[in-house]
């Protein structure tokens, strides 16, 4: 066993600490090329990761950079610097620790390049920037270890892929580099290990004691949950009661808009005047910092928050986590629960609050999954090629390279290990020439091959490359600030699309305050405080998560029971009634109900494929219904069902759900879809086709050079096989379109469709009538809306539509 060197042993002893088994284990494995540690929050995870570094540096014989620490959050880097500085100072170790993020000053960053510290704490984007410099090999010479914190979170996005490509570059510069990943509990540790390690190196996995089982239950409320909705407002009194009985409570919501609404309601009902704050990603940094500081100082009894608090910044003394709304995903729930009690070996306490009656079932299923330690998750797809294109540009910025060398490097990253040479070459060709079928830019290539080495045609291109580094997209947000003579206090951000729908006088919620839209000035929304007015809801970007496949399966399992004594009476009666009137959905069959209501023919499809896939299914099925003359008018989708309404009743659902037909319809539909255009824009920015728009550029109010939508349409028309279209399609399938889960549903039911006809809405379908987010089926719908709106605006303005307009004639029928 590796013993702790004296200063460390003494330091642990003076603190009355003993080395945790996983910290000791980390020391034993210090020389392995890659190690993944799975540990719950708390429990000295970070110290475990750094202990080998501190020991190696303690003797003061290492010159230059020794360990690189990468975390997904800037704040985490700063937090870790403070936490590490304590033992280093107390032990008097000769170790220099600095952080480097987008917030670091230019002077600091220049100095760090010339004279790197022993331990550098940074983010994937800052690291990508570092390796783009020509002197990167000098900066990283001597690098021994890299510690990737919260790797489970990074692995969920393209940021992780970018980081691993950067590591492949680093490893080529310093072959002996050892990698350590720190992760929260995940469903497939082996997948994260493969993601972390240099392919095909082995990667040991080390499990810290997960601690005792969490104390988790559904919150009991006097009022029964409503039939539909996601806000959990009915539970505010019970939640406030819990807050009063605990030291510090985190109240998680699935979306920012729900967090805002809930916080507003809490504020109205908070008779005990408990200090409660709000924290989410759309709030301004000033606002968030203030809440974080109050939290650390123990001044807050509760924080209403979203995923922005999911990652492990260690603050405050949280003893209760409340999850409002079904958690949608068991893994995220477990990670959130871990936020309660950051003390090793104390059980975390959590309460689930179903937002509506169906979610009661979902919460119960989630509770059972947590007890069974049965986590869910989608397998990681192959490394995205737009990120690879950006990496090729970064590589070119740092100096000339050979294609063979770079190919060998990138395929040593786990997620690119299966990348074919042809795919790599296509990315290289795209970066060099644009990759168009019409080879027009031979004269103006971005990269040129000279003597077998690829290099930038114009070396000044490095600046543009560096400005565009990163895979995070935040350009569609506009700032909101209070209007006053001296600039005004920043409150946060809203989606540009939402800002565009506001008129002066409209009210919305942000940071728990009701504000009135005054005007838009240089891309900043100016508002005033209006507490007396009822708010419109801000449609924040916060992701709407779909219920995971595994959780959906558990719900379907529960439906097979004869009765549900574990459910509250209201929900239990509801399911019994559904079974009496129609039937309950089953995993291996597709239940389709038809019934009339309010002069419309309704069809309800219980696909249990998650919100995004059910939405896509709604679009595809209504298109088929339109073709069959069923005159569909609209639909609404939830995680478990799609409700469609139209003029004619459905006679035979089977043809609507034939796999080949759905797939064919999907291809056509996908092409013109807005989701595709949005996805394309992101792909085009990440791959370096178009520049990332900075706030400064948008603020200047200059006309945009061109829109990504036009590029998309042009490529579709003239170059349909272009690399970027291929990448876009692949992305859309997995993300918002989620056709993969429709395929999974089709396979699971394999043609077994139960069509139940009723004379009225069925119990399970009834809540869908209350769901927000109805989608109209549009033929010429947009044009009609536009004509109506134009007339209304002209009327309102007291203007006449041009006289000839009276006898308005369309030149061609449509």
């Amino acid at each position, binding site marked *: 066993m590796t013993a702790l060197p004296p200063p460390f042993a003494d330091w642990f002893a003076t603190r009355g600490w003993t080395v945790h088994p996983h910290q000791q284990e980390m020391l034993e494995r210090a020389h392995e090329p890659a190690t993944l540690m799975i540990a719950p929050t708390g429990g000295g995870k970070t110290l475990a990761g750094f202990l080998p570094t501190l020991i190696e540096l303690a003797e003061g014989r290492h010159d230059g950079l020794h360990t690189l620490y990468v975390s997904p959050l800037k704040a985490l880097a700063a937090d870790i610097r403070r936490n590490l500085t304590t033992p280093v100072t107390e032990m008097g170790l000769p170790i220099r620790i600095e952080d480097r993020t987008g917030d670091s000053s230019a002077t600091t960053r220049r100095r760090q390049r010339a004279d790197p510290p022993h331990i550098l704490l940074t983010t994937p984007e800052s690291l990508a920037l570092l390796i783009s410099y020509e002197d990167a090999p000098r900066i990283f010479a001597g690098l021994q270890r890299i510690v990737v914190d919260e790797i489970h979170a990074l692995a969920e996005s393209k940021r992780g892929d970018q980081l691993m490509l950067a590591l492949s570059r680093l490893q080529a510069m310093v072959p002996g580099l050892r990698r350590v990943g720190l992760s929260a509990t995940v469903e497939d540790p082996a997948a994260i290990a493969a993601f972390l390690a240099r392919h095909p190196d082995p990667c040991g996995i080390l499990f810290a004691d997960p601690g005792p089982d969490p104390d988790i239950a559904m919150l009991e409320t006097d009022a029964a949950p409503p039939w539909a909705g996601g806000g959990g407002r009915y539970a505010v009194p019970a939640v406030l009661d819990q807050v009063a009985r605990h030291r510090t409570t985190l109240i998680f919501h699935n979306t920012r808009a729900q967090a805002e609404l809930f916080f507003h309601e809490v504020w109205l009902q908070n008779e005990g005047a408990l200090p409660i704050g709000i924290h989410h990603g759309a709030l301004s940094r000033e606002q968030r910092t203030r809440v974080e500081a109050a939290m650390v100082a123990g001044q807050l009894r509760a924080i209403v928050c979203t995923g922005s608090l999911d990652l492990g910044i260690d603050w405050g003394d949280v003893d209760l986590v409340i999850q409002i709304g079904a958690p949608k995903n068991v893994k995220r729930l477990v990670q959130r629960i871990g936020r309660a009690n950051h003390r090793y070996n104390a059980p975390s306490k959590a309460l689930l609050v179903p937002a509506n009656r169906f979610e009661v079932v979902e919460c119960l299923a989630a509770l059972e999954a947590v007890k069974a330690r049965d986590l869910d998750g989608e397998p990681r797809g192959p490394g995205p090629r737009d990120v690879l294109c950006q990496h090729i540009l970064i590589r070119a910025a740092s100096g000339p390279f050979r294609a063979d060398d770079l190919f060998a490097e990138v395929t040593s990253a786990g997620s690119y290990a299966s990348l074919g040479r042809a795919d790599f070459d296509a990315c290289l060709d795209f970066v060099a020439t644009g990759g168009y079928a019409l080879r027009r830019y031979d004269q*103006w290539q971005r990269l040129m091959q000279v003597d077998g080495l690829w290099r930038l045609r114009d070396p000044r291109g490095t600046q543009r490359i560096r400005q565009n580094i990163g895979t995070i997209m935040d350009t569609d947000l506009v700032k909101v600030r209070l209007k006053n003579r001296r600039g005004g206090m920043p409150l946060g951000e809203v989606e540009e699309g939402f800002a565009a729908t506001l008129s002066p006088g409209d009210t919305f919620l942000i940071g728990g305050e009701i504000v009135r839209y005054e005007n838009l000035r240089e891309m900043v929304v100016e508002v005033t405080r209006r507490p007396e007015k009822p708010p419109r809801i801000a449609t924040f970007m916060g992701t709407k998560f779909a219920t995971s496949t595994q959780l959906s399966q558990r719900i379907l399992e529960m439906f097979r029971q004869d009765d549900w004594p574990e459910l509250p009476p209201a929900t239990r009666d509801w399911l019994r009634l559904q079974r009496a009137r129609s039937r309950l959905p089953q995993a291996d069959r597709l239940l389709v109900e038809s019934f009339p209501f309010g002069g419309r023919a309704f069809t309800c499809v219980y696909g249990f494929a998650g919100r995004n896939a059910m939405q896509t299914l709604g679009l595809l099925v209504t298109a088929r219904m339109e073709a069959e003359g069923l005159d569909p008018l609209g639909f609404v989708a939830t995680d478990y069902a799609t409700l469609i309404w139209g003029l004619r009743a459905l006679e035979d659902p089977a043809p609507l759900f034939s796999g080949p037909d759905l797939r064919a319809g999907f291809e056509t539909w996908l092409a013109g879809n807005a989701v595709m255009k949005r996805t394309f824009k992101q792909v085009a920015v990440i791959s370096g086709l178009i520049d990332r728009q900075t706030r400064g550029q948008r603020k200047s109010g200059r006309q*945009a050079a061109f829109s990504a939508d036009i590029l998309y349409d042009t490529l579709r028309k003239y170059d349909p096989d272009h690399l970027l279209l291929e990448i876009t399609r692949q992305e859309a399938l997995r993300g918002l379109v989620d056709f993969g889960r429709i395929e999974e549903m089709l396979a699971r039911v394999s043609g077994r469709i139960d069509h139940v006809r009723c004379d009225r809405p069925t119990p399970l379908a009834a809540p869908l009538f209350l769901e927000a987010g109805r989608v109209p089926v549009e033929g010429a719908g947009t044009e009609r809306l536009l004509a109506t709106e134009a007339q209304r605006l002209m009327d309102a303005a007291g203007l006449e*539509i041009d006289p000839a307009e009276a006898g308005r004639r369309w030149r061609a029928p449509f």
Partner: protein
Amino acid sequence: MNALDFDFAGERLTARGTGALWWAARRCLVVADLHLGKAERFARKGRAQLPPYEIADTLARLLGEIKELGPEIVVALGDSFDDDAARDALSAAERAELADLVGGRRWVWIAGNHDPGGSDPGGETVESCEETVESCELGRIVFRHIATPCGVGEVSGHYHPKLGLGLGGKRVSRRCFVTNGARLILPAFGTFTGGLDCTAPPIRAVMGDQARAILTGPHPCMVPVPRLARA
């Protein structure tokens, strides 16, 4: 193709859904800001390698208008080429295609800020009836590249106006014509052209507070330009 008729400077004009302007009485077709060769210029300047199909697409749409309407005069309101070098970089096929369009009718190129050197695409097939001018008058209407603050009966381009409308939660943004009765600004016709919202100060400065926009698209429609409270 759908279109909207309106009166301007005592003349009956037609705003085409494509963004072109048709003056039936004079059999005159007007287009603004073709920006031919923009993709080439971006590549040349090392800014981006955009899909190199923009010239083909713009010319194909222009040809569609010419075929449908059979104009005797075509006026291109300037910035027809993205810069003078882009004009020289046209491929032989593109030159021939452009020459075909220009041939057999009077064709007026107004010089723009992007193509001050004139827009003569060169080549022997181009007929002599084309001309490059700073401005051009036909009856009561004057064509120029950039609107003047007090022009009357003035038709121009340059600003690439567009307008966004909220339709019950759905946002629609389209290229548009803008007019205040005295001046008319056309949307950009070129494929790779962005837009400037017609509530933006530069357009407001020439249009005042009473402007109307005609949105392009399958069914052009007229709306008042919103008066956003701007500080």
